[in-house]
């Protein structure tokens, strides 16, 4: 029987949830400022995806290229990337993400660093998992203030993939391709569907495969806090110290 663990940080939870979405033999890219997906991918590699090709910006061990970030971008542009991770200060009901401004473009309440390659990667990676460390109405809005990259494009636009999931500390939303909208796929232990709906700024249908996220196993958490933590330290030292607990003695 698997031992179930209930003491963990929201970041550890999200990393484990993401790791379960990573498939063996996939080609996976992780961009800048993405410590949670980085942890999730390395965890997957340790547990069930030993043949995945994982490329992590900012890592020496997980960057098989000679050049800089353009290498990963061109790989995605060639259509060779199976999985990529993006975030957004806002994510809306149509799958649009905003990485640019809150408020008006010319007199914004907040200006963010911008898209970098997101407006290409959101189309060209076969699957994109969005991650966001808060599940609130200010994040999940009906319509984003600025469409950095759209969830849906017309049929005559070349597009390899697009949104598949959003992972938050409360839930997993899944992209419904036919309905072109998000459904509530899972709520994490401790959250409820009502609570997630209340904190989402657009109507959320319950998926036909809706479930409570299977609890984190002792094996997942132990691997995350040992082997993964060790590798993660070299890429995201501050995040690792603050969010991934060292294995408690005993």
């Amino acid at each position, binding site marked *: 029987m698997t031992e179930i663990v209930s003491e963990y940080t929201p970041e550890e939870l999200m990393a484990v949830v993401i790791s379960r979405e990573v498939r063996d033999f996939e080609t996976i890219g992780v961009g800048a400022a993405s410590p949670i997906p980085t942890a999730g991918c390395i965890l997957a590699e340790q547990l069930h995806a030993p043949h995945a090709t994982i490329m992590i910006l900012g890592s020496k061990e997980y960057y098989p290229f000679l*050049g*800089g*970030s353009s290498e990963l971008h061109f790989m995605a542009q060639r259509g060779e990337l199976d999985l990529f991770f993006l975030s957004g200060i806002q994510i809306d009901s149509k799958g649009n993400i905003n990485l640019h401004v809150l408020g008006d473009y010319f007199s914004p309440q907040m200006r963010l660093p911008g*898209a970098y390659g997101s*407006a290409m990667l959101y189309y060209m990676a076969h699957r994109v998992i969005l991650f966001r460390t808060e599940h609130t109405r200010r994040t999940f809005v009906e319509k984003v203030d600025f469409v950095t990259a*759209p969830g849906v494009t017309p049929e*005559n636009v*070349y*597009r390899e993939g697009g949104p598949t999931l959003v992972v938050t500390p409360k839930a997993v939303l899944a992209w419904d391709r036919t309905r072109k909208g998000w459904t509530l796929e899972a709520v994490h232990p401790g959250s409820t569907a009502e609570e997630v709906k209340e904190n989402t700024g657009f109507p959320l249908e319950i998926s036909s495969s809706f479930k409570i996220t299977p609890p984190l196993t002792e094996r997942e958490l132990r691997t995350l806090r040992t082997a993964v933590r060790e590798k993660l330290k070299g890429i995201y030292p501050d995040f690792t110290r603050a969010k991934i607990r060292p294995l408690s003695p005993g």
Partner: protein
Amino acid sequence: MVQAGSIGLPYIAVRGLLGSDLLKYRSDLKVESNPFHPEERVVLAQPIRPDVAVFHALKADCWGNAVTPGLRDDLMLARAARRVIVTAEELTDHELTPQDAFQNTFLPAIDVDGVVHTPFGAHPCCCGLLYPVDDVHVKEYLNAARGEESFKAYLDQYVYSVRNEKEYLKKVGVIAQA
């Protein structure tokens, strides 16, 4: 785009972007038909050719060869720029080659116009593994940058009131006060 600039193209076609609000605000991005598949719409981007690009290097030699920290697209940007200046932690008269740039980036002299010796020149940012980001100073800068007045005060304290780089480094405590 920098890539188009780096290889001297008149423009470059890029994947994605269609449906992004970027197209509303960026005059250097245009939507056209793909001439080879006219039913397909593609985004074309104007080349970027900066007048000057500046790189901070771990070391540089007196011919202009340089090693910058990490694996980055510095060479692409250097080739796109019309003038390239390298500031370096260390200067050498021993000729640097790509072999000196293991796990780092090599900028060949042919793409560099000038080299300046500037130890701690990346402060308050980091330079590879030589020194980390000065978090305290960056925080001070971020707070100062919130308002016109406070930013002016920051400039007065760290830029206008020092005569040179060395005085600045003494003032921020990176090198010892003489």
